[in-house]
């Protein structure tokens, strides 16, 4: 049963950290939507949830710390974050934390949820 609202923006995030040309390109889209005060529903598929993990040694790998800005989204708008239960278990099993509170949801349940969003964008 879809639970989003007509104004909400669903962002489907598919790539793990640093896979793209810019480390923060997906975060930028989320930040723009949040600045416009649109309710956000973030769907992290597979290992893309690693973008939210809070214990990477960014300094040692000389990579930017831009990902930490995910944590600022709730200050800007209403945000709900979903990820696959198996990946959340891996993260907690490695004694890591996520920058945002994440609701476990299977891909099938996410797909049903997308129908409740006003617009959905695959990133």
């Amino acid at each position, binding site marked *: 049963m879809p639970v989003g609202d007509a104004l909400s*923006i669903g962002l489907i995030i598919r790539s793990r950290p640093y896979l793209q*040309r810019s480390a923060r390109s997906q975060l930028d*889209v989320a930040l723009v939507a949040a600045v416009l005060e*649109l309710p956000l529903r973030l769907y992290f598929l597979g290992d893309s949830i690693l973008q939210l993990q809070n214990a990477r040694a960014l300094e040692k790998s000389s990579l930017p710390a831009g990902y930490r800005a995910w944590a600022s989204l709730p200050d800007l708008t209403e945000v709900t974050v979903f990820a696959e239960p198996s990946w959340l278990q891996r993260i907690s099993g490695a004694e890591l934390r996520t920058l945002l509170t994440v609701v476990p949801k299977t891909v099938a349940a996410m797909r049903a949820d997308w129908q409740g969003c006003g*617009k959905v*964008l695959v990133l």
Partner: protein
Amino acid sequence: MWPGRFEAENVHEIDITVKFLVIVNESPWGSDLALAANRFVGAALESGVEVAAVFFREDGVYNALQGENCDPGTPDLTEAWGALAAQSGTRLLMCSSSRARRFREQSSPAFIESGLTDMMELMIGCDRVISF
């Protein structure tokens, strides 16, 4: 949901009251998605569908890079997008930060530098968003 029917095989069955935003994320050579997007927009416009804009982000900004040699038989997508915009008046918007991260060369004048805020506002204003 859809006000009318949509058949992938026959774009002429799209309801003409629907306004589209098309987002292109891929370069002309990385996959065939940019070509598919170009053909989709052309077919949609031909059948009277309104395409509010085509927004190029990520590697999609390479579609605006003019002067690249194309193999014989392969379409020059920069020219193809420009011709499409000239015929229809559809705006070709290019993410300025994606471009700044990728190339400094002169882009085709058919493409207008824009930003993610414009993309988001267009998303809100359009009936459907199609991402390639």
